[in-house]
């Protein structure tokens, strides 16, 4: 059994809570709901919402949105709805005026396609990984067996040349050696077959590479259009915000970033500097 380990319990306390609170607060800042362009034309519902909202508004829409969401906390509920209504209206109008509703619709249509392609990549890479690991599982024991037998055989031959073997022992050694050499090529050929399988399993790269390029094209198109819409519709002070969180996945490009580590030694240095 394992001996009880002393862990620094003090780390699991206010510090951690504060860190989480700050992160949680950064992650769930209320954002204006991006209204999906479900149809190209003006909808009656939207019009009705806008009318009911606009009825309470004194200031023109442009001025309201320029004040930004920071002011929301100080206003009443009515004001919040007013502002949201104006934002939705503004987004809707911008989309139509600029022709983005059609473009976004087209992009949205491509998303299931992209999802399918990504699922294909997951499948292909998983297959390849399994193939390689299976090949290693087969080849490893063969290699281990040959290694063990070679070492044992070499030891016995050493004793033979040191004149430590009787004639009978030498006869057994000769027979064993002959059997070993008869058996070895078969195993080595099998290992070779597994190595070839490992090489062949890399064929996914070509296939997934092509699919990834297509998905990147789709995402790029979608990103460009969404970006345009956001630039049109977002108040200035929100444009600089960066999303924060603890589940970001692999860092694709660490260049110029101070908030990430790129080597294990940097991890170790950071932990050490903090006394862990």
């Amino acid at each position, binding site marked *: 059994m*394992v001996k009880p380990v002393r862990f620094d319990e003090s780390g699991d306390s206010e510090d951690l809570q504060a860190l989480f609170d700050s992160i949680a607060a950064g992650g769930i800042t209320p954002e204006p709901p991006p209204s999906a362009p479900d149809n190209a034309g003006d909808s009656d519902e939207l019009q009705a919402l806008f009318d009911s909202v606009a009825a309470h508004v004194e200031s023109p829409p442009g001025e309201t949105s320029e004040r930004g969401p920071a002011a929301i906390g100080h206003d009443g509920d009515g004001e919040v709805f007013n502002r949201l209504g104006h934002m939705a209206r503004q987004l809707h109008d911008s989309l139509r005026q600029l022709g983005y509703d059609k473009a976004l619709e087209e992009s949205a249509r491509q998303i299931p396609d992209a999802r399918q392609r990504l699922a294909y990549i997951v499948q292909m890479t998983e297959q390849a990984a399994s193939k390689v690991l299976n090949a290693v599982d087969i080849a490893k024991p063969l290699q281990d067996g040959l290694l063990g037998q070679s070492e044992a055989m070499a030891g016995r031959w050493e004793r033979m040349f040191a004149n430590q073997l009787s004639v009978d022992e030498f006869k057994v050694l000769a027979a064993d050696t002959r059997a070993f050499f008869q058996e070895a090529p078969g195993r080595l050929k099998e290992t070779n077959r597994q190595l070839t399988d490992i090489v062949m399993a890399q064929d996914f790269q070509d296939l997934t590479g092509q699919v990834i390029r297509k998905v990147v094209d789709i995402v790029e198109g979608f990103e460009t259009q969404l970006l345009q819409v956001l630039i049109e519709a977002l108040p200035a002070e929100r444009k600089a915000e960066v999303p924060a969180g603890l589940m970001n996945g692999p860092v694709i490009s660490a260049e110029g970033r101070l908030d990430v580590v790129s080597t294990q030694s940097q991890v170790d240095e950071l932990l050490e500097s903090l006394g862990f």
Partner: protein
Amino acid sequence: MPADPSKIKFLVVDDFSTMRRIVRNLLKELGFTNVDEAEDGAVALQKLKAGGFDFVVTDWNMPNMDGLTLLQSVRADPALKHLPVLMITAEAKKENIIAAAQAGASGYIVKPFTAATLNEKLAKIFEKVGL
């Protein structure tokens, strides 16, 4: 490293079966043949609570329950809090590493990693806990 590595029971937690297999193979190379697997934190916690484990190697980003929550749950459980927990994750932000350390992680390895790194971190943890 422990005298008889096959006596140490590992739980490898990762939502990708390939990564679980790779870690399992690396552990096997080091003589740790007693390895069980879980595909997320929730399944892992269930298995850990059933008892018998000596060491946890976990990913961070997983469905149902992520690795940090698993680590916090382990540390909050009087029966489990002594377990060494080594995180192997693609999360490379400094705040991730700090959060893991503050939550009581025994070690932190960023993906992609090498067999040598795993070996070194395991040795360090075993030395610390006296297994």
